[in-house]
């Protein structure tokens, strides 16, 4: 029996009134958790785990997975409305989502984000359905050098075509890398850059930094730009929702490309956050000329959202088939699997087909449930922006601090939010890009570990990164992505100088 037959049996497991009910509840809870910054999907799922002890494993995993999908959708909402990413993976959505909402097109921005997220998720599930066996074997080929090459590719894809001054990009990147080294180092087992401060032992939390940089930093900017006590005057019209949906086919190339990047990053396992950054970078590089990115360009919302969700769904595959979680949420769910008495690994597909395929089938349904539910909230969320700043401003401050506190219940993190709020403000004032800093914080430590492991394995030879076709081609592709734009910039500079001279 092929995968298709198994999937049909999975649908029989998933489509029962109780399971549909569980999906609705899970998605709703996830939406709430996702909308609140800091209280992300991993926290939400671990809070729910005790409830699942008495449940049947299939129902339990459907509940947890539905919550995850809900949280992924919810995370984009605050990115677009307030420039505060609800989830790490929705940071890239702020780059164009927030400017678009500021222009009064809130409904359009939210609809674009949710619809492309739904499409991304469905592509992810289809890939899982068709390629489950193959993908699991493929992921096994990833050792330390291969991991490093994937992270390197994400860096290069994002930075290659940076619109800011190269020097400022590099400084921002280095600050991010330095921050990512704080805390316990896995490879050497020593504490670094903690200066004897106990609170720094766990490192600087990425979410706390992001809440400070984007949330508080943006507020400070707004305050300085002259306190506009009016909300954004946005027209809320249901027809806007349908008009935006009709607009989607125009971005077919971005959708396809971003889904491919997302599934690739989900399976390899680079994770949804890396996927969304990489997809945004590639979209910026390859999209047809038009209005600039970072000012509310539709592709800038479609690309990260599609990749985020296809990676999020595909990340379930390495978890089930190999026991490697490629996101924090997947790690928590894996803990759940073990408590329910299931062993993630290659044999799970053979020994518990009803569980695995029940879950996969539920992913189709619950993502559709999520899109329907989340679209229904669009007018409500869009209306939020019409509230005057005098009311919404303090609310955002409160949300930022509550969110930062929930990350690890540490008061120290509140000071960090303030500090990074100021840093975010200074960065924007001085035209330093924030994205490289954020990217370096997400991937810096992982890339460093993978590099260090590769060096141990190869006794210090860089040749290990070209030691087989897989790692070699990823590394070469990464170098091309970073070098070609620079070369073409040089060439065009040279040419323009040439034309100037001939004109003289």
């Amino acid at each position, binding site marked *: 029996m092929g995968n298709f037959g198994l999937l049909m049996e999975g649908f029989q497991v998933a489509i029962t009134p109780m399971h549909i009910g569980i999906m609705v509840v899970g998605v709703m809870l996830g939406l709430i958790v996702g909308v609140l910054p800091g209280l992300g999907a991993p926290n939400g799922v671990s809070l729910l785990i*005790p409830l699942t002890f008495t449940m049947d494993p299939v129902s339990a995993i459907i509940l947890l997975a539905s919550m995850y999908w809900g949280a992924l959708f919810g995370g984009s909402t605050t990115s677009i409305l307030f420039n505060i990413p609800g989830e790490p993976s929705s940071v890239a959505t702020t780059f164009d989502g927030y400017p678009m909402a500021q222009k009064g097109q809130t409904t359009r921005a939210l609809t674009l984000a949710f619809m492309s997220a739904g499409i991304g998720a469905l592509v992810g599930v289809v890939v899982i359905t068709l390629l489950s066996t193959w993908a699991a074997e493929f992921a096994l080929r990833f050792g330390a050098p291969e991991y490093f090459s994937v992270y390197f590719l994400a860096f290069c894809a994002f930075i290659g075509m940076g619109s800011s001054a190269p020097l400022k990009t590099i400084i921002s990147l280095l600050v991010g890398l330095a921050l990512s080294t704080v*805390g316990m180092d*896995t490879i050497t087992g020593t504490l670094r850059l903690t200066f004897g401060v*106990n609170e720094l032992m766990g490192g600087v939390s990425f979410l706390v930094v992001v809440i400070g940089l984007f949330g508080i930093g943006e507020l400070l900017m707004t305050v300085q730009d002259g306190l506009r006590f009016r909300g954004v005057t946005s027209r809320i019209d249901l027809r806007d929702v349908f008009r935006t949906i009709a607009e989607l086919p125009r971005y077919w190339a971005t959708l396809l490309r971003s889904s491919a990047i997302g599934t690739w990053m989900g399976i390899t396992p680079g994770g949804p956050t890396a996927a969304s950054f990489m997809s945004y970078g590639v979209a910026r590089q390859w999209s047809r000329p038009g209005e600039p990115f970072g000012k509310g360009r539709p592709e800038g919302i479609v690309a990260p959202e599609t990749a985020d969700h296809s990676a999020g769904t595909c990340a379930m595959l390495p978890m089930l088939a190999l026991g490697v*979680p490629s996101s924090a949420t997947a790690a928590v769910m894996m*803990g759940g699997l073990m408590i329910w008495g299931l062993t993630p*690994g290659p044999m799970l597909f053979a020994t518990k087909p009803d569980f695995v395929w029940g879950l996969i089938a539920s992913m189709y349904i619950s993502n559709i449930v999520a899109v329907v539910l989340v679209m229904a909230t669009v007018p409500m969320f869009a209306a939020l922006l019409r509230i005057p700043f005098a009311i919404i401003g303090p609310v955002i401050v409160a949300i930022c601090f509550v969110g930062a506190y929930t990350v690890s219940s540490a008061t120290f993190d509140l000071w960090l939010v303030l500090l990074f709020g100021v840093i975010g403000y200074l960065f924007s004032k001085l035209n330093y890009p924030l994205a490289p800093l954020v990217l370096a914080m997400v991937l810096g430590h992982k890339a460093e570990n993978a590099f260090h492991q590769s060096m*141990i394995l190869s006794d210090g030879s860089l040749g290990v990164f070209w030691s087989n076709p897989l790692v070699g081609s990823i590394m070469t592709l990464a170098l091309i992505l970073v070098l070609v734009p620079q070369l073409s910039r040089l060439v065009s500079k040279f040419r323009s100088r040439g034309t100037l001279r001939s004109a003289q």
Partner: protein
Amino acid sequence: MKKTSIVLALAATLLLSAGAFAQWAPERPVEFIVASGAGGGTDNFARTIQSIIAQHDLMDQSVVVLNKGAGSGAEAFVYAKGNAGDPHKLIFGTNNVYLLPHVAKMAYTSEDLVPVAALALDEFLIWVKADAPYADAAAFIEAAKASPGSIPFGGSQSKDTDETLVALVEQKTGAEFKYVPFNGGGEVGVQLAGGHIAANVNNPNENLGQWQAGAIKPLCVFSDERMAESEPIHGDMGWHDIPTCAESGIDISAYQMPRTVWLPAGVSDEQLAFYVDVMEKVSQTPEWQEYVANTSQTGRFLAGDDLASFIDNSETSTVEVFKAEGWTAQ
């Protein structure tokens, strides 16, 4: 005279009943502080106990689980130090509680916590790829001796239980490996299945899935006796069929990781006794037996003097390895 005796008798009954009621019980919700991130082995340990306590109503107060896994778990132990004398905080860890301060300069010492109980011992095995040319552990050691420092041996974290065990094997046999640290046991298991490393010393649970699939095979277990009987896992081999490492000529009688529960220092004896009692009841439930069997650990309840001497032995022998490797923090 009569009056005084009545008073005395009254006082005695009062004292007696006071003695009976002196059994302390939590007055507020109890925090379970887990010295690992969500989803890890220690996290599952704590959450399983949480669910058993709830199902069997072993405590009147509710339980809140908090993960404080930063710095290899040190975050949880520093938190215990900061909450000295608070009987509403239980800390869940392994042997990291008393071993961490030896290898890195930490803001706590093992004196800052009181051991409550150990509920299970997690076993360590040498695993290699299924198609590796080593028939048994002895052959594997010989191969390592033949090409010193070139066989990559993966493990979870650095200067932690895995690297300590590999160092111990090196010291006892004279073989030399290339130790590569990864983030966690699951990752090390997949790296072995993919052939990126030659061996690992994972706990049974971390490699079970890959063994079932026939991607890897166990060579020996670091225990003084073979593991419990089980259903065959792969082919006709089950946990009990794995030889001990001592049988295979590696002179290490036992190396096991205890799953431990602690309280902050400064709590009273009654408070300690309450939790010892709860943990003992947990260890007798069928759900606990099921968890131990599912995760292929060895269930063993230790408290009081037994626990103290277990910790003492384990700490002394491990610190010897640290000293020989030059890892001890100044």
